[in-house]
Structures are given as structure tokens and as C-alpha cells.
């Protein structure tokens, strides 16, 4: 790149920044982290802390933003993060707590913890009520539960018993779908929770090891099941399940030895990661694609689409910083890549 080009870019950038400044004058200033993307890093397995990274204007990456705002660490194994109203709920698995922070400044507001938070995994919220999936004692298959949280007081008001290994959840009006991935074992259920009565109203048997769930623009629910891995000794195929009106309406089988992960959606296209490739499938077509997208190859630790970009993370050797690679879905090319914290497990969009 010659000097002239560099200068042009610099000037253009400057103009963009200046124009942004004048725009934001019209809105109240919320905080440093109001417009970007978060990457939540689990941190090292045994001892250490998870960290939160932030990609802001011009794709500038800032690390350890929670620690910078609060002077303390997140805790051991930062599992997931959920944004609701003006707050961020950060689930710290091995520290058995959920941190409530201002989503724009990352300043800590409260910590949800106690005997009713045990191996927490994911958080969702409906109105003034939060729901936290908990494995309970990881070696006990029958003590798994959803903790119900009063978001005004940040306390657990009740617990709802569920099957083994509740993981990711999806809110759909007054319903919460709970993936029962199986914890350290393998499960094959999707439980349906009614948020008016706070009871589990039904349980659907889907494929083995449901690992991701989403809703498309037509209101259909898609669940990707990884299948039981070969090391379990009873390997099963991965499956993509479509659910409409609380019933399975379609099941697509990936075939022997196939264990897809990370289902995500952009516009009306589903994306998932399988055997080191990223596959795309239109929601209108009921058939799996046989060819991956060229140039998207990778065994990703997490993958999420947003606004016509696909965000992927790689945990590397799990003992050092990982990487974030972003692909432009309109051109199917790599847009940029960044170094993350240790074991980047979650990408969160505003």
C-alpha cells in the first residue's frame, strides 16, 4: 500500500469518526460499549478467569473490559452472556454465579449467586423475569434446574426441575425452549416452559445432543443436534430439526459420523459448522447442502451470524489467546480477524 492510499484511508477514517461524533450528539451518551460486539472468553479450564473483549468503532478490539470497569475479574469459566434492557447478564459456570452489569459501561450492578445457582450455563429474560439453566451437581443426572430470577431484586424466586443438562434457551413470546444437551452425558430433549405459569408444559424428543437453537423469520424453531460422538461407544447421526407449533415438522439427517454444530441464521439462510467446513442452507429448502462455503474452512469453537457477517472463533491450543475471524456473507470473503482472550466461547451482538 503506498503512502497516498494510506493517507486517503486515514482521512476517510477521520471524516467517519468526526461524522459519528456529530451523530451521537443527538443521542444521550450511554457508555463505551454501546454499539459494538462482545466476545466472551471462557478463560483457562482449571484455574483462572474468563474475560470480556469488545469490538468497537473501526473494528478496534479492547480486551478485559469488565476488569477495566470494575477492578475485579469475572471468575472461572465465563460460559455465556445475555443482553436485556440496559443490562448484561454474564454467566460464570465454575464460580457458580451470574454477574449483572450495565451493558453500556460494564459496571457491575449485582451478583446472582447462592445455593440455587449451581453450575449455571445460560441466561434468558422475559420482561422482569430471568431464567438461568443450571446443571446442578455435574455428576448427578437428576438435579438439573432452571432458576427463576426477579430482575428487580436480582434474586432467585423459584426453581423449576428439568431433565439432564439444560443448555441454551430460546425465548418465543411466552414460551422458553430449553435444549437438554445432557451435561457431561448426552440427552435428546427439548423442554418447553411456559413463562406465565413457570412450568414445563411439554418435552419433545428430538435428536441426540441438541447444541443450538434459533427462530427464523417465519416463526419456525430450528434445533441442531450434534448426535452422540463416537467416543461414547454408541455413536448417532447429527440432525437438524424443524419445530412448528410445538411439534417436530421436519427432521434432516446428516448421515453416519456427522456431528454438526453452531447453527446460526442470517436473513433467511441457516449456517452451521461440520467437519471443518461451514455450510449454508436456505430455510425454504428442505435439503442439506453437500458443499461447504469455499474459504470459510475451520473447526470453530463458536460461530454466529449477524447483519450479513459471520463471526467465528477458534480456541487454538486452549492455553493461549484464540482468534476471531469474520466473514462477509454478501461476498463470501474474510472481512477481518482479531486476537481474542483465552478460549473465546461466545459472541454477543447488541
Amino acid at each position, binding site marked *: 500500500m503506498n503512502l497516498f492510499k494510506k493517507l486517503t484511508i486515514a482521512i476517510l477514517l477521520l471524516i467517519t469518526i468526526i461524522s459519528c461524533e456529530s451523530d451521537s450528539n443527538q443521542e444521550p451518551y450511554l457508555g463505551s460499549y454501546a454499539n459494538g460486539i462482545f466476545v466472551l472468553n471462557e478463560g*483457562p479450564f*482449571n*484455574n*483462572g*478467569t474468563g474475560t470480556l473483549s469488545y469490538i468497537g468503532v473501526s473494528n478496534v478490539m479492547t480486551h478485559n473490559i469488565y476488569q477495566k470497569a470494575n477492578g475485579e*475479574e469475572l*471468575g*472461572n*469459566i465465563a460460559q455465556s452472556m445475555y443482553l436485556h434492557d440496559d443490562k448484561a447478564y454474564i454467566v460464570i459456570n*465454575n*464460580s*457458580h454465579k451470574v454477574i449483572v452489569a450495565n451493558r453500556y459501561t460494564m459496571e457491575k450492578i449485582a451478583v446472582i449467586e447462592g445455593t440455587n445457582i449451581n453450575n449455571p450455563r445460560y441466561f434468558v429474560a422475559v420482561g422482569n423475569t430471568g431464567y438461568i439453566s443450571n446443571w446442578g*451437581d*455435574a*455428576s*448427578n443426572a437428576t438435579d438439573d434446574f432452571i432458576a427463576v430470577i426477579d430482575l428487580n431484586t436480582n434474586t432467585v424466586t423459584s426453581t423449576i426441575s428439568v431433565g439432564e443438562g439444560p443448555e441454551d434457551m430460546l425465548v418465543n413470546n411466552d414460551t422458553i425452549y430449553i435444549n437438554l444437551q445432557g451435561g457431561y452425558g448426552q440427552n435428546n430433549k427439548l423442554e418447553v416452559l411456559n413463562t406465565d405459569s413457570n412450568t414445563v408444559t411439554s418435552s419433545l424428543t428430538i435428536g441426540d445432543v441438541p447444541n443450538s437453537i434459533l427462530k427464523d423469520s417465519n416463526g419456525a424453531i430450528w434445533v441442531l443436534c*450434534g448426535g452422540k*460422538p*463416537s*467416543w*461414547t*461407544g454408541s455413536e448417532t447421526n447429527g440432525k437438524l430439526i424443524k419445530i412448528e407449533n410445538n411439534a417436530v415438522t421436519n427432521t434432516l439427517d446428516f448421515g453416519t459420523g456427522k*456431528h454438526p*454444530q453452531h447453527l446460526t441464521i442470517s436473513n433467511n439462510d441457516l449456517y452451521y459448522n461440520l467437519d471443518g467446513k461451514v455450510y449454508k442452507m436456505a430455510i425454504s429448502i428442505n435439503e442439506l447442502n453437500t458443499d461447504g462455503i469455499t474459504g470459510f474452512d475451520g*473447526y470453530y*469453537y463458536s460461530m454466529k451470524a449477524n447483519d450479513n457477517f459471520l463471526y467465528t472463533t477458534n*480456541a487454538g*491450543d*486452549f*492455553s*493461549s*489467546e484464540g482468534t476471531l475471524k469474520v466473514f462477509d456473507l454478501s461476498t463470501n470473503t474474510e472481512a477481518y480477524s482479531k486476537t481474542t482472550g*483465552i478460549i473465546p466461547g461466545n459472541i454477543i451482538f447488541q
Partner: protein
Amino acid sequence: MRYNIVFFFITIFAYSQNDTIHLLEEVKLHGNFSPKINAGYHLQIIKDSAIQNNNQSLGSILQNKANIYFKQNGNGMVSSISLRGSGASHTGVYWNGIAINSSLNGQTDFNTLSANGFNQIEIKKGAGSTLFGSGAIGGAINLRDQIYFIQKKEFGLQIGLASYNSQDISFKSELSTAKIYSKFSIQGMQSENNYPYLKTDLSNENAAYKNYHIKGVLGYKLNYNNQIQLFITYSNNDRELSRTLTAPNNSKYKNSDQRILVQWKNYGNKHNSSLKLAYLQEIYNYFPNKNNTLFSEGSSDNYIVKYDFNYFFTKRWNIHSGLENNYTKGNGTNILKKERNRTEIYLLTHQNPIKKLNYNISIRKGFSNTYNIPFIYAIDLKLKILPKLNIKANYSTNYKLPTFNDLYWNFSGNENLVAENNKSAEVGLDYHTKNTNINITSYRIQSDNLIQWRPVSSSLWRPINIQSVTSYGLEFELNTVKKINNHKFHLQTQYAYTVSKDDVLRKQLIYVPYHKANASIQYNYKKWTLNFNQQYNGKVFTTTSNTQEVDNFWLSNIQINKNFLKKKINIGFIVNNLFNKAYQTVAYRPMPNRNFKLKINIKI
């Protein structure tokens, strides 16, 4: 290269002499740790007086006296060794010459071994697989019980009281005649281990431990030429696994080790030999939740036959050879029920052709039903270049065999693993006077095919022979004794500079400090002894990219002892972490604050 060495052996066997010679006392006493057959290596011996005086775990003794780096998951928790930048399974640990590293994970947890009651600890730094077998790469450490056929009757009782509600008690008896020797000891200790984490509101929760160790040694002198010896130990450890700075814990770990060794020693005019039959058993139970009955378990049984034979052709030339068979059965919740057998032979020739030169050449080859054991060789020498100055040098090839966990871990073990291989060279200078010795050693180690567990899919990690590591470093040691009338000073200092880098990443391995040093000064005056010990641990990296680290720290301990009633009673008071420093050896696992210990030793 291989053929050259075989040829070399043939030529030296070809000529023989018939001098009648005396037994080389040294080889008789020290076996594979004999300074003669390790002429080109730096050996260190820690005597029982120092072991007793320290009254600490084996790990602490090695840290303070031999400047060895240990990685501890908090006080009393798992403690693993790293010598010359190598991994925890790359230091051979031996009990009376029998390898005792776990068959399951290849390591020794130095907080489960008690140094109590051993006559000496022998430390060899540097690689030596030809003599010591698999895993003796960073070095080798032997715990020795010595049998003496003299008239002796001694009973000892030791009681210790320390911070964090810690108590220990041990009893020892040693009875011997000109024909029979017996030693028995029993030791128990327990601790709440609930020290505060300095600079936080947390304390070391879920960290209580208790353990006991029983040992017995019997020797019987059949005649001038023959002895039968029996060694038995049993130890039992019950530990909670402590929390970290960021997460609580409620798990627990129990393990026990049982070791039995029968040895027949035969001394002739020109030869000596020993036949060892040993049985080693390790059992562990891991409770993910201590309040729950659920646990996982693992065990291994090891049957060893070892025959060592020395023959002295002349006063200046002897051979040292051995045959060892090792049959191991492993079993457990997470490993397949498997067995393996291996047979290894080695041969060493020691020569002292001119007075100034001692050298050894050794070879080893093993056979196994599980994997190929490579042929290895070594050469080492000691040359006197000035009256008090020796040069020592060695070159060796070495190996470490895959462990049971590597091979047979449920669904992820890899039965296609091969032995890790290693080349090692060192050169050192040794200056020795009556009151002072100075040693400086530099080394270089190249390790290939190192086994690492790597993710092969989103949910599966498997061990593969993948890593190459280059290590080099420098070790310095100075010991000096000074006596002025009734005042006796003993200064001991050691320093190690260690570089150990992954060949691909070109980064220092995690948990290998560049700098490690210690200094201790002991002052004796009549019945009083004062001991001041300083330890420095350089920073260590905790990420393979070397972006995060555990801070360096200085640690000071002080100990004062007084003898009463003609040394029959000794009372000591110890302050550990004298300056109350917050420090960690493993990230997020704080070590104890300033703590105290009172001990009473009674001997009759």
C-alpha cells in the same frame, strides 16, 4: 553409531586382567547412583540429618536443598516437579532403586511422598535413561534406606504442631546387630490447611488433608558374601482439593501406595550383584463432590524383577549391567483394563585408564508387547585438569514411554503412540576443596515426539506424539563451611537459569521459570542451630503464547533449634514465609501466609 559402540565393547572385553581387587565400596553402597558410574554428572546427596532437620515434605526439601522447581496446586495439593525445563513425568523417581513414578500418569506427586525415615536422598541432575530407564530426562531422584550391620538400638519420637490446625507425629525404631537389621517407622499428619489468601477476603477452603505412612526395613546377613533385604511401605493420603481465587471446590481425592521389595545381594571378590523382586500398587479415588458417594477410580499393579551385576576386571575397569522386567496391569473408571510387559537390558563400562580420567559408556535396549523401545546410549567422563578442578561432561540419548492414561484412556487414549525421544549433552566444572565446593554446569536437551493432549474435534482430545522442545541452561552451586572456635557456618547457594522452548511456537514452556535460586545459611553454636533460607522463583508463563504470567517471588524461612540432654531432645521453631508475602506457584492458587511450627524430637 550403534555398531561403533558394540565394537568398542567387544574390544574392551577382549583384554582382561586377573588382579584380585577389593569391592568398590561405592558401587556397593549406591547402586545406579554411584558417583563412579555417573562420573560425568553432577550428583547431590541429602543426608538424613538434613531430612530430619527440615521435617518437611519431600518436595520442600528438594526445593530448598536442591533448587528444584515445583508447581503446587496450593499447599499440600498436587505438587509436580520440573527439572531442567522438562515436564513432571520427565524426572525419574526411585525408591531403593525401583522406579515409582505412577504407571497411570507417569508422574510423582511430591506431596504424597514422605521423606521421613530415609537415610538419604540421591539427586542426579541431567538425563540418564541408559541407567535409569524411561523418563529419567530432567534427572533422577532416589529415596534410599541404608542397611548397616552394626550394634544399634534407637527409638525416636517426633511431634509437630503448626499453623492452620496442623499436627504431625512420627515414631521410628532402628534395631540392629552384626547379623540383623530392622527399621520401622510410622508417621501421620493432618491439617485444616485453611490459610487466608492475602490481599483478599478469601481463605483456602476445602483444602484439609490427612495422611499416614508406614514403613519397615529388614536386613539379614547370611554370610560375608550374602544379604537378604526386605523393604515395605504403605502410604495413604486423603485430601480435599482446594478452591482457587475464582472458583469454589468441593471435590476430594484419596490415594494409597503400597510397595514391597525383596532384595538379595551377593558380594564376591570381583563381582557384586543384586536381585530385586518388587510389587508396587497405586490406587486412587476421585470424588467430584465430597458430600456424594459418587467417585471415579483407577489403579495399577506393577511386578518388577531386576537383576544388576557388576564385574571388576581390574581396579580401573569394571562393568555394570542389568536386566529388568516390568509387568503392569492398569484398571479404572476411565481407563481400559489393560496389561503390558517390558524387558530392558543395559550395560555400562567404567574405566579409569589414567588417574586423571574416569569415563563410562553405556547402552540400553528394551522390548515390549505394547510399543517399540528405542536403543539408547550414553557416554560421560570426568577429567581432572587441575588438582582441585574437574571437568565433567556427558552426552546421552534417552526416552520416555507412553503412560497408561496416554495409551488407554477411555475412547481417547492412543495405542499408536511411540516413545518420546531425547538427546542431551552437558559440560560442567567442579572445584572442590576441604571446605568449599563450586560447581557450574551448562546443558542442552533436545526432545522430540513429546506426547501432548490436543483437541481433535469439538468434544474430543487425544494424546499425540507432536511436540518438540529445545532446552538449555546453566546451573551454579556454591557450598562452603567455615568454623571459628565454637561457631560453625554453612553457606549453601544454588542458581539455575533455564530456557525451555517449544520448537514451533518458539516460546518458553508454561510453568518453567527462567530463574530459580536459593541460599541458606546455617549457624551452629554449641547446642544452638539457626537456619535462614531464602528462595527465589522467577516469573513463569501461564499461556503458551507467553502473554500471561505468575509473578516471581522471594520466600524466606527461618528455623531455630536447640539440643537438650546430650542431643536426646531437640526442640525447633520454624517460621515459614517470614515476610508474609502473597505468592503463588500456580496461577490463582495462593500459597500460605506467614506460618509457624513447633517441633519436638526425642531420641533414646
